[in-house]
């Protein structure tokens, strides 16, 4: 594959697509598929055949368009977005491509949900066909890889990523350029790149969406990373619970191999790179990098103490670069447009954009990509469209079981790594769950503690025993049988787990409790002193044994 050959593929794909004067895109990502979007696409295909307009009208299955709560979504080449489309609507939709829009199905796009977004990671989502590498190439795909391989040295690639200020999108926010240069400097017979697609946080689904909508973007990012750090083998560790993402990734890898973008001597250079999939098997702790490595090696996913960091001694004892899906998805645009371009977006310390999965008690749920530094208020009330049923906002939970609940007085806080950490939560992988007054914060804390207790791998005692004891106390608070002494013990345990657990799971497990104790302490007191649940969720039933 040479730059000319790539351009040739792009040209012929554009010429082929240019033949179609009409186009209907139907979302075939998991969200819309579960509202039967496949039958909508099939019906559209049939209708096009019936009309004999196959020559000039294309029906394309595309990735996620974002507004999952209004699915199935479809868009036409006339620039109209349709929501809650049914198979029976296909004749009307096809008529509308060159006529008046179907008013009852129109989904307005001049609203903040669409207008406030800035798409980098999701630029191709909902536009290209995730099952065709040609479509990705026509959209400018793999030009960054060719540029890196033919015009830049590995050092220059790393410098570009460093200049961009990109930080790990998996949650901790470690500077990506720094990580890459550490792996590049490490000495080893064989280096590895691993893409962490074990999206375990409940309430987070952006990685799945990227993999389902634009898998080649992730492969390209991994290829560039492999070139920069000197690795020739890579694994994508993906959840077995995401069958569609696995299918599309497998297909993407095969296609990239076919056109010579994966394999030996890519672009006629000495750079060779192979990517293989490894399926996770449902263990939250495998999001932790050393546990993930153990799992790729076929072992139980238990973490080990660091150092040595995976950058020095990782997979099979060799230097290993581990980045999250979204981090890799940011790489190609950075190489294409330059690190300085990327660094202009966002805040001083948190550059670029972040994809959030907005869910819970909010009007518009789905996937949004916004510049770092946007306020929580804009997220919830403008993009999210506010709280349904005239209820009152109570909290927004970020970072999943490792994050915290942010109350109303944090609404004007900018969303970036530092601000969220200061407020007692974390950026996490980007789940953002809005809660209204019908949620009891004790119950929410208990829910997350139950999660951490079940997911604790059992290797270190503070986490294994501590999460169990904290869950017991939270259950007794919810059952209105706890005492002041119990609350004191709860706070002590928070401190203990945070400082003595082996890995991030245990260290961050107290976060939901600490943040709710801090911001919603009166709810805990109401349970303990007045034996009342202000939200009416806890019924005061006796403490059951944890599941």
């Amino acid at each position, binding site marked *: 594959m040479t730059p000319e050959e790539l351009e040739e593929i792009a040209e012929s794909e554009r010429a082929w697509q240019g033949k179609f004067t009409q186009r209907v895109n139907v979302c075939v990502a*998991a*969200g819309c*598929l*579960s*509202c039967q979007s496949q039958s909508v696409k099939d019906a559209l295909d049939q209708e096009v055949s019936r009309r004999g307009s196959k020559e000039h009208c294309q029906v394309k299955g595309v990735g996620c368009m974002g*507004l*999952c*709560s209004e*699915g199935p979504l479809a868009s036409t080449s006339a620039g109209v977005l349709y929501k809650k489309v049914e198979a029976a609507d296909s004749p009307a939709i096809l008529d509308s491509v060159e006529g008046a829009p179907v008013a009852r199905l129109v989904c307005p796009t001049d609203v903040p949900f669409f207008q406030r977004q800035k798409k980098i990671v999701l630029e191709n989502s909902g536009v290209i066909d995730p099952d065709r590498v040609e479509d990705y190439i026509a959209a400018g795909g793999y030009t960054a890889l060719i540029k890196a391989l033919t015009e830049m040295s590995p050092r220059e690639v790393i410098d570009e990523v460093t200049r961009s200020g990109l930080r790990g999108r998996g949650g901790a926010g470690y500077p990506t350029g720094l990580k890459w240069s550490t792996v590049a400097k490490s000495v080893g017979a064989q280096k590895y790149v691993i893409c962490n697609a074990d*999206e*375990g*946080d*409940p*309430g*987070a*689904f952006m990685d*799945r969406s990227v993999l389902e909508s634009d898998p080649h973007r992730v492969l390209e990012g991994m290829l560039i990373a492999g070139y920069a750090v000197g690795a020739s083998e890579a694994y994508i560790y993906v959840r*077995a*619970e*995401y069958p569609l993402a696995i299918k599309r990734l497998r297909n993407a890898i095969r296609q990239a191999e076919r056109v010579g973008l994966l394999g030996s001597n890519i672009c006629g250079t000495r750079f060779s790179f192979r990517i293989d999939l*490894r*399926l*996770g*098997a*449902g*263990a*939250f702790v495998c999001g932790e990098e050393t546990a993930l490595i153990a*799992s*790729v*090696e*076929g*072992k*139980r*996913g238990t973490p080990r103490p660091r150092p040595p960091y995976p950058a020095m001694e990782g997979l*099979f004892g060799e230097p290993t670069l581990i980045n999250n899906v979204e981090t890799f998805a940011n790489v190609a645009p950075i190489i294409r447009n330059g690190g300085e371009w990327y660094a202009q977006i966002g805040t001083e310390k948190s550059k670029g954009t972040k994809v959030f*999965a907005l*869910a*819970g*008690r909010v009007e518009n*749920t*789905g*996937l949004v990509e916004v510049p770092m530094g946007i306020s929580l208020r804009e997220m919830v009330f403008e993009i999210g469209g506010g709280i349904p049923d005239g209820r009152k906002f109570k909290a927004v*939970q970020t970072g*999943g079981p490792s994050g915290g609940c942010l109350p109303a007085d944090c609404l004007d806080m900018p969303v970036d790594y530092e601000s969220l950490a200061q407020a007692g939560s974390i950026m996490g992988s980007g*789940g953002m*769950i809005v*809660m209204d007054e019908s*949620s009891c914060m004790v119950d*929410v804390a208990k*829910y*997350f503690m139950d*999660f951490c207790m079940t*997911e604790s*791998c059992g290797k270190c005692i503070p986490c294994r025993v501590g999460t169990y004891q904290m869950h017991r106390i939270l259950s007794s608070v919810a059952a209105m049988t706890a005492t002041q002494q119990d609350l004191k013990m709860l706070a002590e345990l928070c401190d203990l787990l945070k400082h003595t657990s082996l890995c991030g799971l245990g260290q961050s497990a107290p976060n939901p409790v600490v943040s709710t104790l801090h911001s919603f302490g009166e709810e805990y007191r109401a349970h303990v002193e007045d034996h009342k649940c202000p939200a009416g969720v806890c019924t005061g039933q006796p403490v059951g044994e944890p*599941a």
Partner: protein
Amino acid sequence: MSSYVVKPVPPNPDKRWKLVDATIRRQGQQARGLIETLHTVQEAFGYLDEQALRYVAVSLRVPLSRAYGVATFYHFFTLKPAGEHTCVVCMGTACYIKGAPQLLDAVQRDLGIHPGETTSDKKVSLLTARCLGSCGLAPAVVYDQEVAGKVSTAAVREHLKKWTHG
């Protein structure tokens, strides 16, 4: 190095062991292929029983204890056969605050089983999921691989009735 090691024989003549053998070969009969191999077994047979674990352990030359350890560590692997139908209730955060516990309660009462169990007539297995990633459609339930969004208690009961009385 392994030319004199006798190749283990599958526990029974079932053709599906060929799929398992293919995965074992692809992984170079190495311990690192344990999870991949267990995935193949579960995909082929639906669950991992003792003879499967023994066969995989011998084939990959790992102790049975390690195969059992891995099979029980990960939630995705199951050691028991599933019922004719499976109902998975998502307990992710978004589903939780939108009423998943009430859904689960109703299902448990109707079927008389807890999550992870199968009804005595082997018709329905009940499972919970950590998060399906269908948070935009909370609360979500998976009926036999098919995700349904914005599920009400009445709807889930209706669906189960079709299975148990159908």
